[in-house]
């Protein structure tokens, strides 16, 4: 069920918040084998639902009043375990609340659980989680994508209508595409990072998952806020994304990539993409071909900068103050054992890569060069937006893939992010939405907009969803 329906049912008292929550937990129990949640809060959720029902008048007008929601376990929740998918934080209980979850709480939503994810958001298949992989609701041997795989699967399986995720290199859009739902990565700085456990601080950005553009718009209205506690947070005029859906942005010039057929995208994904282009033309928009030969260098830049920042961000997990602590004889031993035991292989690999590219003698060759490539990609987008209103791309190279592919081809996994990474490097907003169906699996495509043009890309996605049904398909 979509957010719009759930909210209407609550507001019209057709279904109480308590009934909504009970329904959620019924579905959670039916889908146990998908391993979507790291922690569930049935008792608390029911209590809050009853409170909301008893104070209906206070909650009926709130944007998410009475709506069950699931949060990626990367957002710190006060008094509740927050693991970030890692053994390191298996028992970590934060004494503070992230701005994102706080905003959602204030908007009247009911948190039913914290969702599974790749460890410290490092992964594209949800297989690096210490708590085991999440299964894609569309097929029991398939990955849901990552790193926000649990949150995407949660909406795809119909457990909740909305959930939160984070996107550093595609971690919202790629699982949205693989699970057949809608997911938006906002402009860097639109949503506060306070209380969101950092992977790559200069790219991490929280965003919404929902069945459709409407759900994403409404949840983004709640998530986005200027926050003094985050120095990278943007101070800007507040707009209502939900209201923007009705707005008329006129005939748009949409950028598409020259030579996209040579990027290694599967035929099925390309076919769906071409179909979407036809739909857009029918809606009266036109296309401009763009030369983006730098696209593939984005991956190289990303896989230097992201590990560099993560190697530093994850230094605090040393066994001294919080999190996992190994038995050790001396301080060096403590560091070594704690971090070897507490971090999984992928995390350790990225920390090592990160430490290497920042080390004396290699900084210029790797980190500095990667930053240059990043600036180049950013200025490339700037030039695109001189001639187009937004850019249209497939979200992924292929549809949901089989588990355990990583072990046979690690580079293939990194390549998974080819089409999503450029928006992160440039800090641009991008939305992925279901745009087709092949092999009994959904395909996804994305709009990348100019800075703070969430209103535009949500609006256009909504217009497409008014004339298509892909977003209504369920496993």
């Amino acid at each position, binding site marked *: 069920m979509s957010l719009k329906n759930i909210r209407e049912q609550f507001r019209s008292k057709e279904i109480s918040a308590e009934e909504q929550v009970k329904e959620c937990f019924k579905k959670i129990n039916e889908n146990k084998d998908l391993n979507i949640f790291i922690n569930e809060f049935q008792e608390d959720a029911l209590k809050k639902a009853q409170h909301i029902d008893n104070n209906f008048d206070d909650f009926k007008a709130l944007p998410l009043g009475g709506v069950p929601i699931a949060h990626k376990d990367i957002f710190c929740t006060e008094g509740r375990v927050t693991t970030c998918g890692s053994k390191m934080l298996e028992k970590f209980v934060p004494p503070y609340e992230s701005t994102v979850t706080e905003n959602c709480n204030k908007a009247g939503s009911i948190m039913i659980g914290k969702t599974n994810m790749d460890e410290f958001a490092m992964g594209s298949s949800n297989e690096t989680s210490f708590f085991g992989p999440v299964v894609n609701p569309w097929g029991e041997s398939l990955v849901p994508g990552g790193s926000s795989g649990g949150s995407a699967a949660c909406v795809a399986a119909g457990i909740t209508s909305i959930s939160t995720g984070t996107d550093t290199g595609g971690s919202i859009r790629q699982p949205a595409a693989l699970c057949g739902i809608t997911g938006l990565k906002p402009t860097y700085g639109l949503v506060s990072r306070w209380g969101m456990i950092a992977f790559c601080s200069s790219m991490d950005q929280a965003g919404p998952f929902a069945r459709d553009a409407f759900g994403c718009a409404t949840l983004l209205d709640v998530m986005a806020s200027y926050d003094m506690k985050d*120095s990278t947070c943007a101070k800007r005029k507040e707009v209502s994304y939900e209201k923007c859906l009705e707005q008329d942005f006129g005939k748009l010039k949409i950028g598409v990539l020259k030579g996209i057929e040579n990027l290694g995208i599967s035929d099925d994904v390309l076919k769906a993409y071409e179909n979407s282009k036809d739909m857009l033309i029918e809606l009266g928009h036109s296309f401009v071909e763009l030369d983006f030969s730098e696209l593939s260098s984005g991956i190289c830049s990303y896989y230097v900068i992201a590990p560099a920042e993560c190697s530093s961000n994850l*230094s605090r997990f040393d066994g001294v103050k919080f999190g996992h602590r190994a038995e050790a004889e001396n301080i060096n031993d403590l560091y070594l054992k704690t971090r070897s035991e507490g971090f999984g292989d992928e995390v350790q690999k990225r920390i090592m890569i990160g430490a290497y590219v920042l080390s004396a003698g290699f900084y210029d060759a790797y980190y500095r060069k990667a930053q240059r490539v990043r600036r180049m990609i950013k200025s490339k987008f700037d030039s695109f937006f001189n001639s187009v209103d937004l850019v249209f791309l497939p979200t992924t190279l292929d549809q949901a893939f089989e588990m355990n592919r990583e072990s046979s081809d690690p580079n293939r996994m990194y390549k998974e992010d080819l089409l999503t990474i450029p928006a992160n490097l440039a800090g641009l907003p991008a939305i992925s939405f279901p745009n087709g169906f092949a092999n009994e699996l959904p395909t996804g495509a994305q709009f990348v907009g100019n800075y703070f043009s969430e209103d535009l890309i949500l609006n256009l996605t909504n217009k497409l969803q008014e004339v298509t049904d892909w977003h209504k398909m369920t496993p």
Partner: protein
Amino acid sequence: MAQNDTLINGWQPVIGLEVHVQLLTNTKLFSPSKNKFGEEANTLVDLIDMGLPGVLPVLNDGAVKQGIAFGLATNAEIAKTMVFDRKNYFYPDLPKGYQITQLHYPIVKNGSVDIDGKNIRIHQAHLEEDAGKSMHDVYDHESVVDLNRSGVPLLEIVSEPDIRSAEEAVKYLKKIHQIITYLDISDGNMSQGSMRCDANVSIMKPDDKEYGIRAEIKNINSFKFVEKAINFEIKRQIKVLESGEKIEQETRLYDSVKDETRSMRTKEFANDYRYFPCPDLVPHNIPIELIDEVKNNLSELPEEKQQRLMEAHGLNEYDASVICADKTTAKFFEEVVKSADAGLAAKWIMGDLNALLNKHDVTLSECKVEAANFSTMIEKISDGTISGKIAKEVLETIWETGEDVLKIIDGKGMQQISDEGELEKIVDKILADNKSQVDAYKSGKDKLFGFFVGQVMKITQGKANPGLVNEILKKKLS
């Protein structure tokens, strides 16, 4: 470049100092915790100071203003845009596993200070956060960490290698101390660690074109130790080089008990700090308006105060410079001269009071002598109520007890005897009792005059007005 008077055995010492100064902000550099010394362990700690996952730093504007003030006071360039970097290393008192500091784009660069007419260049001054404090002697088999200091704002002031002797290093350090205390940006208390110093020391032959290999001496915590540590290090390096060996680039520790420096780690084992720009803090612009605001509110600097005291109170340059050497003394002086004579006040501050401070090794703000009380004492000297000799006793009593000057004088009957009739009676008695000395004096033994003065002082316990005594004696003996 070499100045020959600083050569030691033909070797030219080359010294640069890195001075860490804790800033006097209300809160820490990146968190809302109070910035205060001496509180119970781990009571001034915020989520940010603990480095919990997901928390983010927010820059304290107060620290920025203080950094700007230092830049203005040292004729330095203030950055239009400054950038914070992360310095990565593991240590239990560094909760995040990195320190936020400034490497390439510091708040202040290219400044200078003048010491006795010589220009010492300041390469840069940058803002950074302090670490917590590890303590290894609180419990038997455990080390513990106090995070009250974690995140306290520091200004690290890095000089160019322009210093040529240990003595000059101390002068430079005192100059920095003077500036930061005048600006009220730090209390400059070295024993409490709010001012700490690392010294980079190397030696070279006067005609060498390149500096020698340097050793860095870490965390020296007093002016005296700075001088001793550098002098030890110079001698050590001379010994090493003259015995045909090589200096190793290394970090050394100064042991004040043994008065020696010891190797801590060599370059080979030096940390690779993997600096990179801190992505949680965007490059920070410093608008010209902010610089102007700081400039307009800048405290009076030592040279300005010195000039003003010379003009307003007729002090000579030397006295004015001694009085202005530290802000507390200058402030004390200005309080005292509100009602007392400036020349006399300067003489007593620089003389007897200073001697007491040195003897007891305390600072003016720590002792019991208060400006108002001291001022009364000077007034009582001026109006002849007490003699200079008695004043010394009075000052000793103030030093011990902090008691009110008037009470001391009353209580001990220290008022000067200026009653001419009374003094004449005393003089008459002395002359009558010492007839032979009177005869000798009259026959030309002028030096005996002092003997008669001494006798008067003995009988009056030093309370006789010396001017009057001279006058009466001269009259009676002529």
